[in-house]
């Protein structure tokens, strides 16, 4: 359906477009900038063009700040972000408003979360048990690995969990981020995979990362992805950087739910009309059935949104729904 998109292109120029331009710019977070999502991004572009009749410009970036500033300043009209990133952008500009997020397997927002973990090596797992239950009491003084200091699931959520557990004061939060203070050493893996590798190789005692990024490499050999205390083992056919780590196992000692990231628009530079059109298009069933955007459950080829079940789709959300993350971030 791209033919219809181009035909209305010129007619819509002066009218309502992005208030300062004809094209709608969509910016993607580094994660979603990945090359393998190129098809998904193109499909998205077509959908938006179809819905609004305007040209769409896709912008990938490798820097979180650039993405956040772009949507906050209104230079981009549309963005797909992480929950934390959204909160930051919303703080910079109230015009940034969420309008859709991925649902849970039931097609509702109830469990529209993914998981972030604190994991340890299997051989050390016992040390983190208290009365047969896993706890993070013992992580103090250990070597810690985060993803990067702008990640939601690989940094923000785990530090919030640790802050809560150890009742760390607000002003001392930075202590969690630097070597030789709370932790004997703090590492940044640069990516979820990198953080996991830090742990499995033994450079870190404790590592934070999420499920979505590690599923291609790890399988749950005891328990499941939804249970604390489960054991995960590197798959035999895992690709780099795990190819030399086959068979190694890790155990999750804590699991924190993270809210799915929202699609947001900048209400100041995207016309009301387009806002409605896009929101409607994104939350439609037709959109959820687009295989280039939603990969089928269990499918080999991953698209931007992997479906847990057939019911998975995008649902309408508001800023209110993100209250938990607001609380986590502190504003």
């Amino acid at each position, binding site marked *: 359906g791209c033919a219809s998109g181009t035909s209305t292109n010129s007619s819509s120029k002066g009218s309502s477009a992005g208030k300062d331009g004809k094209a709608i*710019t969509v*910016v993607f977070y*580094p994660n979603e*900038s*990945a*090359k*393998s999502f190129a098809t998904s991004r193109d499909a998205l572009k077509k959908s938006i063009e179809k819905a609004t009749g305007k040209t769409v410009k896709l*912008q*990938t*970036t*490798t*820097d979180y*700040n*650039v*993405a956040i*500033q*772009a949507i906050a*300043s209104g*230079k*981009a009209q549309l963005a797909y972000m992480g929950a934390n990133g959204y909160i930051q952008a919303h703080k910079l500009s109230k015009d940034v408003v969420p309008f859709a997020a991925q649902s849970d397997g039931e097609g509702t927002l109830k469990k529209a979360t993914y998981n972030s973990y604190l994991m340890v090596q299997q051989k050390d797992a016992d040390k983190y048990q208290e009365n047969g239950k896993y706890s993070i009491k013992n992580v103090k003084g250990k070597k810690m690995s985060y993803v990067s200091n702008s990640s939601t699931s690989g940094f923000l959520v785990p530090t919030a969990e640790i802050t809560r557990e150890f009742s760390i004061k607000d002003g001392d939060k930075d202590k969690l981020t630097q*070597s030789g203070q709370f932790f004997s*050493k703090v590492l940044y893996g*640069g*990516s979820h*995979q*990198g953080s996991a590798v830090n742990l499995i190789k033994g*450079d870190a005692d404790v590592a934070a990362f999420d499920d979505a990024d590690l599923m291609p490499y790890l399988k749950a050999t005891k328990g499941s992805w939804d249970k604390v205390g489960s054991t995960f083992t590197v798959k035999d056919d895992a*690709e*780099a*950087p795990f190819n030399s780590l086959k068979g190694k196992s890790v155990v999750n000692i804590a699991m924190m739910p993270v809210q799915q990231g929202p699609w947001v628009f900048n209400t100041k530079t995207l016309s009301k009309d387009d806002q409605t059109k896009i929101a409607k298009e994104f939350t439609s069933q037709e959109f959820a059935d687009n295989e280039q955007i939603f990969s089928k459950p269990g499918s080999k080829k991953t698209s931007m949104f992997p479906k847990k079940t057939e019911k998975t789709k995008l649902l309408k959300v508001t800023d209110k729904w993100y209250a938990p993350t607001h609380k986590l971030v502190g504003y």
Partner: protein
Amino acid sequence: MIENSQPNPNALQPSAPKSKHISLVTKPRKILRTVLAVLAIISIYSLATLNSSNLNLADAFHSLGVNLNAMFLHPSVGQDSWGQLLQALVTSVSLALLTTLLGAVVAFFIAVGAARNLAPSWLATGIKAVMAFIRAIPTILWVLIYSVVMGIGASAAVVGLTFHSVAYLVKAYSESIEETSQDTIEALKASGVGFWPIVFQAILPSIVPALLSWTFIRFEINFANAVAVGAAAGADDIGYFLFMAGNFYFNFHEVGLIVYLLLGVAIVLELISMKLRGHYLKHN
């Protein structure tokens, strides 16, 4: 003349010709040695206190060998195609060309104001301080600023990178200008020539080889910078593929291939610069 012997008193200071032992150490030599000693001590102290996090050197070098082997002996295009990579490479080269050309033109005019033999001292010092400040701001910050102001894309990358380009070249150019002999400038001044004609007719031709060589060095740096931050501004350059291959897919083979491509560009560039410089020095 008498007045030229005025540096004598301090130059004579190890004046012990009578005594048996004659020292060769002069004051500047002592200062140099002190500076070197201080730097050496700082280095040793800093090396000793470096946190190497109980690194196992044998393992480290082994894994280094394995990685280098994967990168440089088994390069491959990974999941991208040659077409994509080459096109992105061209984009990166274009970014570097744009930032270098823009930088060179802007920098030349500013450099005239920053050269001590042409401009008043306060102006030269002022400009140089501002340039030092600009260079202290990380490139990624410039890119961020301009993607906020102009939107993500190549334009932001170009403008952001050009700032450093200008700041660097102003320093380099103004130092080249300062090296042109005051006498030649004076010769034209003595025949009643104005400021800008002197700049373009006397100074510019004299420093062309130096300008060329600085500009090419800067091109090399701009190219590296374009690769490093172009991707952040969404310029769709080779840096994006490098970032993806390195940070997302951990594909050493593809990183190796991209490094080879970058080296190829660098070598071609070096050959061109050698040719041009040789040509200019010999023939013009």
